[in-house]
């Protein structure tokens, strides 16, 4: 789960990482009040879960209370790379002498935590890694030792942090590591980590991702999830516990098993279609599960045909076929549907569907054949 800047900064504060005073608001009037309360020039920052806010005009300032209100009015509702800014973060503007970067990432390749520090902050780390890789100091942390003070010193020396800033930088790294471990984060990134003219280090932005599988340990963080930021189908899917990802095509796709569904998207694209979604119905036999999944999928009005791709393993295809028929009785499906059954009891399953022969239901035997059929139906309807 990705957190907004202001949520990440709340966690930073909790772990003692210095941030600027600020307030999150969702109306221009509140933006003005926040600016007045902060009593100094402020920055007005769109809260969206995507990069490139600055370029898109989502970060304005330094601003007076009047200007803050005007900026907030312009930013609220702004579409930034497909994400609508519904809140802005108002924070006291900072004087910036230099910009650094630090991050703590879950390096799945190394199966260890990777810590990076560079004095070339304020730009994308990929850019730094490409142009001047020698400027990035990095090390992996063995989970058995944890992040020790010597790790912090080594990073600071290697990155060329000035001597009089070392204590602060090392402290921020240690605290960020603690935040990462104690909140089950997959990413904690501070970019930029600024140095003020007074020589003070502070986190000016935050990028924070928490492991979905660990949210049960962190109900306070789980409550930060912004369901309204999801699009209608994704929100519905989340509320109903369906594994769904929205895409923008016309062929609705359901299957059992994440790998098989990903593969189905590819095969449909290969047949010239555009997948509307990813939906893994899991075991997939029960009518209730199929109904719930279909409701989520069909709430996307762009869907013009549906492919239900099942490989029967322990779940038998005849059970799935009965589940599909029950689901169709309970749903008002207006688009054509192709059901492809393969695996355990597939012949029986296809026979059950063929015999019932509900209108608009097509039975397929192979994945490629089913893909071609559904693409034709999506194009024709």
């Amino acid at each position: 789960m990705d957190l907004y800047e202001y949520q990440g900064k709340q966690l930073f504060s909790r772990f003692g990482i210095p941030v600027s005073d600020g307030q999150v608001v969702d109306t221009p009037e509140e933006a003005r009040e926040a600016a007045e309360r902060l009593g100094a020039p402020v920055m007005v920052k769109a809260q969206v879960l995507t990069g490139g806010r600055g370029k898109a005009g989502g970060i304005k300032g330094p601003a007076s209370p009047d200007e803050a209100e005007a900026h907030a009015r312009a930013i609220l509702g702004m579409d930034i790379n497909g994400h609508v800014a519904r809140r802005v973060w108002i924070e006291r503007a900072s004087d910036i002498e230099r910009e650094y970067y630090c991050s703590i990432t879950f390096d799945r390749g190394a199966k260890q935590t990777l810590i990076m520090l560079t004095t070339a902050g304020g730009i994308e780390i990929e850019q730094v890694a490409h142009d001047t890789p020698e400027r990035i100091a990095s090390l992996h942390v063995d989970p058995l030792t944890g992040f020790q003070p010597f790790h912090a010193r080594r990073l600071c020396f290697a990155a060329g942090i000035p001597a009089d800033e070392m204590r602060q930088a090392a402290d921020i790294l240690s605290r960020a590591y603690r935040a990462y471990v104690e909140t089950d984060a997959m990413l904690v990134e501070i970019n930029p980590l600024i140095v003020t003219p007074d020589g003070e280090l502070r986190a000016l932005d935050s990028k924070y991702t928490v492991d979905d599988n660990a949210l049960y340990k962190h109900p306070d963080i789980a409550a930060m999830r912004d369901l309204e930021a999801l699009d209608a189908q994704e929100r519905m899917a989340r509320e109903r516990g369906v594994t769904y990802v929205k895409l923008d095509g016309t062929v609705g796709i359901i299957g059992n098993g994440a790998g098989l569904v990903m593969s189905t998207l590819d095969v449909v694209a290969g047949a010239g279609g555009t997948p509307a979604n990813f939906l893994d119905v899991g075991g997939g036999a029960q009518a209730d599960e199929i109904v719930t999944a279909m409701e989520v999928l069909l709430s996307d009005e762009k869907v013009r045909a549906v492919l239900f791709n099942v490989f029967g393993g322990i779940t038998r295809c005849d059970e799935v076929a009965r589940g599909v028929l029950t689901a169709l009785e309970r749903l008002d499906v207006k688009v054509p549907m192709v059901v492809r059954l393969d695996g355990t009891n597939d012949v029986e399953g296809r026979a059950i569907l063929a015999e019932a022969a509900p209108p608009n239901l097509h039975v397929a035997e192979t994945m490629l054949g089913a893909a071609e059929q559904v693409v034709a139906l999506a194009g024709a309807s």
Partner: protein
Amino acid sequence: MAILVGAETRLVVQGITGREGSFHATRNRDYGTNVVAGVTPSKAGQDVNGIPVFNTVADAVAERQANTAMVFVPPRFAADAIYEAVDAGIETVICITEGIPAHDMLQLYPYVRARGATLLGPNCPGALSPGVANVGIIPAQVFGQGRIGLVSRSGTLTYQIGKELADAKLGNSTIVGIGGDPIVGLGFIDVLERFEADSGTDLVVMVGEIGGNEEEKAAEFIASHMSTPVVAYIAGFQAPPGKTMGHAGAIISGSAGTAQAKKEALEGHGVRVGRSPTEAAQLAVEAYARLG
């Protein structure tokens, strides 16, 4: 011959009195796997369809000489179950549980390695050596006995490919699901290494998906360390960046972990990659025919 699970397997099932645990323990035993024990704390003395239940894995090892553990406990207790199995001297732990926090695995992985144990999964369907032993949830009836090794991050996708091989009268030495999480025990390379050393495996089909760089590393390993031919399939070309596609580990981060990059890495090292599961199975059939 086979890898990971076979005639020597003496299986203890952790979480055997749960619904899934009892169902699959019984199913695995009925297939022919030597299921010697189950473990559920405070339920020692009971049995599940004749399989004796113990309080601890250590007891199951002492009383029934278990050497392989299958973990079926809920995600928040699963890391503890794996520690317990490894601590009790279990050689191979196969963890089916999905949803284990990634940081739990970060801690656990070096411990398992240091103890010299083998961990398959988590979030995996297990391993099946057709005709010999089945540990996990793989539907054995789909697969035939034979000489093709199958290794995959996905379940049903693997069953699909296995079934198409079976339709072509080709069977498998062992089917290994390595799991869909960001950190899993055995990776592609670990399993490829075992297939390379297995006298019962003449060809390997590797099934990857988006996320991480295991497939890219495997491509290099295949080129430099394997004489057994490998064909591959990769799922997720249509996956958008930044979205988790079902499996916790199936996510393109920034520009890393794309299906295209994996396909190019494999093809760059001489591994043929099918565009669909069907084509991957056909490539395997052709490659197998060339072995003579």
